[in-house]
Every structure is written in structure tokens, then in C-alpha cells.
């Protein structure tokens, strides 16, 4: 058998036309297929070219797959306050706080719930703080410790004093002769100072008081809210309009049940026209919408709340319209008792810090706190220090030391300032005057019975996995530095480290 070898070219030609490859070896028409993929660029790893003295490396572009967070979104997550844990059990036998209950003997040392409408109001005035453990439990509740019950009783006393005076001044005398309590709450970190403020505010809301709260005095100190000089003042005073507008919004919203029943009774000199017979909450909101007039509106509102005009009753006899008591609450008070971080040029052309009492809003609060002004219908001015001492006030330390000395030795009426003041430290006298004779309320650890009550409440929420027994309570009480409530929560509810 022989084989014939056909050369390749001829071989193709012998095939039928249909089977021959259809592409021509050369064509001027465009390709119908996609062009070959471009050669991958290698990174610039080569050494610099001749003559170049610098190595240039290309930066890789960062590709974002998700949308960047909106302005303020991340902060909102950080500052979010959660007041309920749906995983927690409903604690058995938890009763809600009522107006009468706050100072009653039977709630002393018991945990009571905070009613829903009060929780809403407290949220508005920023009574709840981020670091507090509300998020672990079914709903907000707090221990009625001794100090809280006593404070509630004093608030009752303020109301009764005013009632007696009203009977006496029923014939339309302006001065209602109320009693203004001033207290400075201090104590170690985690002893429950802010929560005591919150409980005082809850009691005030329940008893129909007007609550005005500065949740964090640091905001007025840091130089982060805008400020403006008040015209025609010497020495120059400053307003913080945005902050005042925010405060007015809080006052109007949180106290709406009270303020909506009260109407304007005075004529005020304001840059805008006011509809006569406006309710006080609607009036306060005028300042919210226009921060430029926030301070005049606040002043007018204050006049309305404190100096009610006599109104004629049906017989044409002048009758004083009852105005509610007022609770002024300031948390973390230290920053407004020292020079602020706002700066101004003085006469010598030097930048100097503005004193907090040159800010009219701060001065307004501190005047009541130091007793320079009093509330005609009575009320409570409550300031609390912060356990976090990032902003220290020497004046406050001296004030606290003097208050402690007054408690230790009640006979000694005349304390010498020099005994408490380190002469080698520069002292801010204006701040010192604000705290020199204030009554101080020291918060310490809970008693063991109180600690047990609060741990049982936590166990009722399902947050404690061991039996609540004497030994357990005693161990945790000791671990918590003698019942410091914040530490107790860390030891019992959170992981113990």
C-alpha cells in the first residue's frame, strides 16, 4: 500500500470550497470580533529613569462600595439613648411613680418605674445620659434612695409654704413669698448624681412644676455654640442665641401640659408683634423659630413665669394668678464656674477668656443658684458636679470644702475663706461667690438594703443569673466600693472585670 503525501497548500485547495477556511490572510475591512484585551499595566516598580532623582509611585484609588455616612449620622449613633431592652423580662410588681408617692415613706429604698409621659418629657430635657445603663432593662425605673425621698419632701414643703402664703396674700399682693431651695449635688464618680437630678425632674413634672434644665453646662463653656454681644451693655454682655433657642424649644415641649394652660398677662417690648392671649408654650416657640429674638423671648417668658400680673376676677377684684413652681437643673456645673474658652480682645489688645457670668443665660442661672435672686412662687435650683473631672473648677472645690466644713461644724457660722483657698492659686472670685454659701448634698454608696433592692430589680429584668442572696449582695456591694451604684451595675449586670 502506497501513500501519497500532498503538500499542505495543495491539500487545502483539493477540499470543497465550503470546507476551506473563509478568512483571508490579509484584509482592509475592520475586524468584527472584539479587539484583544489590552495588556495589563504592570505597577511602576521599575527604578527611576535616568536623570530622575525621585521615585514616583502611583497611588491606588480607594473604591468606596457604600455611601459615606451623612453629616452627623455617626454622632447620632454615638449619642443615641436607648431606654428599653425588649429581651429583658417584665419585672414583677414594679409600680409607677406618682406625684404623691415621691416623698412617701413606703417607697423609700424601693425601685419605682418612671411613667411613660414623664419619660418623654425627660427625654426632651435630656435627663437621660449616654453612659447610663437604661438600655439593659425593660423600661426606665430608678431606686428611691434616701436622698431622693428627702428631696421630694423638701419640694412638697416648697409647695405648702407657697400655699400658706397665697392664702395670706389672697387680696392680690404680688409677692408670693415662695421658698427657693438651692442645692449642689456632689459625690464620687458613679454615685448617681445625674440620676438624682433626673428623679428630681421626674418628681417636678409629676407635681406640675416647670422644669428648665441645662443638661450639660460644658456646652456653654466650650466655645462651640455661637455667641454675640448684647447691644447697649457695659461691660459687654453676650448672648448665646442658638443655645437659648434650643433651650426654649425644650422648655416648651417638655412643659407643654403646664404652659399650655397659662397665658401672657404682661405687655412685653419685643421686636415682633405678639398676639394677645397667647399661651406660654406657643410664646416660647416664637423664640425657637427665630434665634435672633430667643433671648428677649426667654426674658419675657421668665417674667411671665415669675411675676404674674394681678388679674381681675368676676367681681372686679384683683387676684394673683397662680404660677407653677420652677425647677432649675444644671448638670456638670464645673465648666461655668471658671473662665470659658470664648475669647475677646480686651482694651490692651490682648485675647482674654470671657467669664461665664458675662453670658446672660449663664448669669441668669447662676444668680438663682447663688441666691442673688429668688423665685417668687418658690422652687428648687439644683446643680450637680460630674465625676469626670476633665474640666476642673477651683472655685467649686473651695465651695464644696466650705459646705463640708459647715456640715461638720454647724456652730461655726463665719468660715474664713483663707482656710480653704490655696493662696498660691489664682482664684476666680466671681465664680467663688456663686458657690460660697450653697448647701451641698453629698452622694455616697447605697446601703446594703438599697443595693439589694436594686439588684433584685435587675434580677427581675433577667439581667442577673445568680441567686440574689445576702452573700451575693454583700460581695457585689464591696466590689462596688461600698455600694457606688454605677460600679454596682458594672459588677452585677455587665461583665465583671
Amino acid at each position, binding site marked *: 500500500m502506497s501513500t501519497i503525501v500532498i503538500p499542505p497548500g495543495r491539500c487545502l485547495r483539493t477540499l470543497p470550497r465550503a470546507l476551506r477556511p473563509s478568512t483571508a490572510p490579509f484584509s482592509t475591512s475592520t475586524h468584527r470580533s472584539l479587539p484583544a484585551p489590552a495588556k495589563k499595566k504592570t505597577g511602576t516598580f521599575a527604578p527611576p529613569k535616568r536623570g530622575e532623582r525621585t521615585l514616583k509611585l502611583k497611588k491606588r484609588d480607594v473604591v468606596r462600595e457604600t455611601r459615606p455616612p451623612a453629616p452627623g449620622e455617626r*454622632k447620632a*449613633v454615638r449619642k443615641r439613648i436607648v431606654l428599653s431592652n*425588649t*429581651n429583658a423580662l417584665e419585672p414583677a410588681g414594679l409600680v409607677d411613680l406618682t406625684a404623691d408617692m415621691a416623698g412617701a415613706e413606703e417607697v423609700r429604698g424601693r425601685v419605682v418605674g418612671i411613667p411613660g409621659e414623664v419619660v418623654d418629657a425627660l427625654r426632651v430635657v435630656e435627663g437621660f445620659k449616654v453612659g447610663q445603663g437604661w438600655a439593659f432593662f425593660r423600661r426606665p425605673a430608678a431606686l428611691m434612695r434616701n436622698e431622693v425621698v428627702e428631696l421630694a419632701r423638701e419640694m412638697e414643703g416648697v409647695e405648702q409654704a407657697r400655699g400658706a402664703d397665697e392664702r395670706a396674700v389672697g387680696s392680690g399682693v404680688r409677692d408670693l413669698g415662695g421658698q427657693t431651695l438651692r442645692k449642689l449635688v456632689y459625690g464620687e464618680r458613679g454615685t448617681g448624681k445625674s440620676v438624682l437630678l433626673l428623679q428630681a425632674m421626674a418628681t417636678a413634672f409629676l407635681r406640675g412644676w416647670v422644669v428648665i434644665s441645662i443638661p450639660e453646662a460644658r456646652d456653654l463653656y466650650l466655645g462651640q455654640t455661637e455667641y454675640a454681644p448684647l447691644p447697649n451693655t457695659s461691660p459687654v454682655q453676650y448672648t448665646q442665641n442658638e443655645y437659648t433657642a434650643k433651650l426654649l424649644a425644650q422648655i416648651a415641649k417638655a412643659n407643654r401640659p403646664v404652659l399650655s394652660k397659662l397665658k401672657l398677662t404682661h405687655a412685653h417690648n419685643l421686636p415682633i408683634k405678639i398676639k394677645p392671649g397667647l399661651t406660654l408654650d406657643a410664646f416660647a416657640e416664637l423664640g425657637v423659630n427665630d434665634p435672633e429674638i430667643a433671648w428677649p423671648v426667654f426674658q419675657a417668658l421668665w417674667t411671665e413665669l415669675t411675676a404674674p400680673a394681678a388679674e381681675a376676677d368676676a367681681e372686679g377684684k384683683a387676684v394673683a394668678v397662680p404660677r407653677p413652681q420652677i425647677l432649675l437643673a444644671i448638670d456638670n456645673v464645673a465648666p461655668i464656674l471658671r473662665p470659658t474658652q470664648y475669647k475677646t480682645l480686651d482694651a490692651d489688645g490682648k485675647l482674654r477668656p470671657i467669664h461665664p457670668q458675662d453670658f446672660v443665660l449663664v448669669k441668669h442661672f447662676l444668680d438663682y443658684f447663688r441666691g442673688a435672686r429668688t423665685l417668687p412662687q418658690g422652687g428648687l435650683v439644683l446643680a450637680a458636679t460630674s465625676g469626670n473631672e476633665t474640666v476642673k473648677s477651683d472655685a467649686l472645690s473651695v465651695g464644696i470644702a466650705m459646705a463640708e466644713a459647715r456640715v461638720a461644724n454647724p456652730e461655726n457660722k463665719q468660715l474664713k475663706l483663707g482656710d480653704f483657698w490655696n493662696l498660691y492659686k489664682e482664684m476666680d472670685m466671681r465664680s467663688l461667690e456663686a458657690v460660697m454659701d450653697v448647701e451641698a448634698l453629698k452622694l455616697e454608696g447605697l446601703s446594703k438594703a438599697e443595693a439589694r433592692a436594686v439588684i*433584685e430589680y435587675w*434580677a427581675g429584668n433577667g439581667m442577673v443569673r445568680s441567686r440574689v*442572696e445576702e452573700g451575693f449582695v454583700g460581695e457585689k456591694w464591696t466590689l462596688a466600693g461600698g455600694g457606688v451604684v454605677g460600679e454596682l451595675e458594672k459588677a452585677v449586670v*455587665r*461583665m465583671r472585670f
Partner: protein
Amino acid sequence: MARLRISPSCAFALPLRPRTQLPRWHSGRPSPVDQSFAPLRQFADSNASKPADGSSTDVLPSISEEAAAVAKATGRGGPDIEQGTPVQDVVKDDIEAQKHLPKVMLDELKAAKPTGSRSYSTSAFRREQLETTGSSDTGLESAVLDAVSAMGASSAKEMEAAGVKFGLPSLPLPPDANLHYRYHPVVQQVVGLLMRHGKKATAQRNVNLILAHLRTAPPPVFRADRPLAPGHPPPSHLPLNPVLYLTLAIDSAAPLMRIVQLRGAAGGGVSLPVPKPLNLRQRRRAAIRWIIDAAAKRRNHGSGKGMLAKRIAEEMIAVVEGRSSVWEKRNVLHKLGVSARANMSFSRTKRSMF
């Protein structure tokens, strides 16, 4: 010895004994293993068990009786009588034999089998540990109820002893009584693996935040195709026991083995993958590392110090809900392990013989 003849088709005799309990997953600490060995019957032993008729057949008591006797004599747990094939396994596929089963065993056989469990055991504990510690881990409800019912009741036990001020401790001491082991072992291990630059307090704070997040997050939704460690509680129980939640996430994601590449063992410079089993701590370590790595790829939704903890907690929840990429890692590793199991016999010493 008691014998049970099941059916004519089942020609061999089986010792009658209850079914072996499946090892149950729990987050407790392993206890020291109590190992007892049955001593041999010596010539000088009592012959009281011999039949009265004088027959030479030595009638043994039932194995459970024998075990009880040994336990009594040695004062310890007695021999392990769980060796051998359970009756249930023998008759499982034998329909004829099942007809002759006692009703109790038949009912047990027909009872619904647990769904969502793996065909092979991935339990991180040995049976002995389960037997010694299992009883101490009561259910979550009972623990919660105990705590609630204990409210208001004074200390039940009044320890009385002369010269002791605070009473005697009840023995045995709880496992966390030792200063160095006062935290749960899983928590301790997570702290160690989260720690950077020796900052232990920071790591502890982060673990604290992780547990707080697990407490407050909504209960997880389990996925049928992602079987968790067997014996886990229902999802609604997990947030109230965050350490259990954490342990469940870690133990469920924990790989069974690691793959060791034996260099040059396959010849021609090719390395040979050999699966090596991991112990409990090693398995957990691998899982925690995977979870931390997966959490590092997550995006922050807020700002501040708690973000790392939040991301890790979210990853833990994702593991329990079956959404995490950790499961893929685990599956890939296990597949590789299955395919490489033929190489188990290889070791460095064997190779040196060639």
C-alpha cells in the same frame, strides 16, 4: 448476665442497656476526668454470687449490677459500661427485629429525631466531661426563675460551725473560685485574642461591650442549613445569657481540624496536606480569629470607642444566624480535610523510612 434475644434473624445475643446519650453541647468549664478501671476478679474473691445448685457455670450479675459493685468497692465512678453496640443501633434498619422490641424502646425509636444536627458529632467535649459537668448546667429558664424566686428570700443555708465567722463554703468549690480562673474560659480566651500591645483592660472593656451588645440585640433567627452546635437553647434564651450566646457562636464556627502541609511528602517537591485534629481550645482559637478577621472587614456605622466591639458582636450574631463568611471558611477547610484524610497515615517519621 442478662441477655436479650430479639428475633430469630438476630442470631447473636445483645447486652440490654439504655441508649447512649448524645453528647450535649454546653458552655461550661471542663472538669477533671474521673477515670476508673474495673479490677480483675481474683481467685480470692467472694463466691457468693455462685448458684446454689452447685453448677460449675459462673452466673455473672448484670453489667449494671457489676458496675455498681465495682463502684462501691473502689469508691469511685465504676467502669464505663457504655462500650459495645447499643440495641437501638442494631435494630435501627431491621424492621423485622423492631416488631419484637419492647414498647419503651419502640417509642424512643419513633420519637422525632433532632433536625438541624450534623451527621457527625462536632462536640467539643468528651463524654466524661459531659457526665461530670452536664448536670450543673441547668437551663436558662430555671436559672432566671431561680434568681427571681430567690428575691426576698433570705439565705437558705445557715452554715454553722464553731469558730467560723462567715460559715463554711460548700464543697466542691465552684470552678470560678480560683483567682486565676475567675472568668469564663471562653471570655478569657476572647480577651486574650482581642488584646493588642498588652492592653488587657482595653480588651476586657471591648469584651464587656460585645456582651452588652449581645444582651440588647434582638434574638437571632436560626438557619436550618447552618447547623449550630447540638443541644443549643432556643434563640429567645440567648440574649439573656450573653456568655452562652458568645460561646455558641464560637463553638458552632469552630473547625474540627487544621491542615498541615508536609513538605515534599508527595514527592517531586509537592507538599502533602494532612489533616490534624484540634483540641477544644485550639478549635475555639481558630473560630475567634476567623470572627475577628471577618469583623475587621465590616463597616463602622457610628463613631467612638465602642465600634470594634460592635462590629465583632454583629459578626457573632451573623455567625449564629448563618450569614457570616466564617461558615464558608469552615466548610472549605472541612472539605479539604475530608479529601486529605487519606494522608492521615503520613507522618514525618514514616517518611524518613523511605
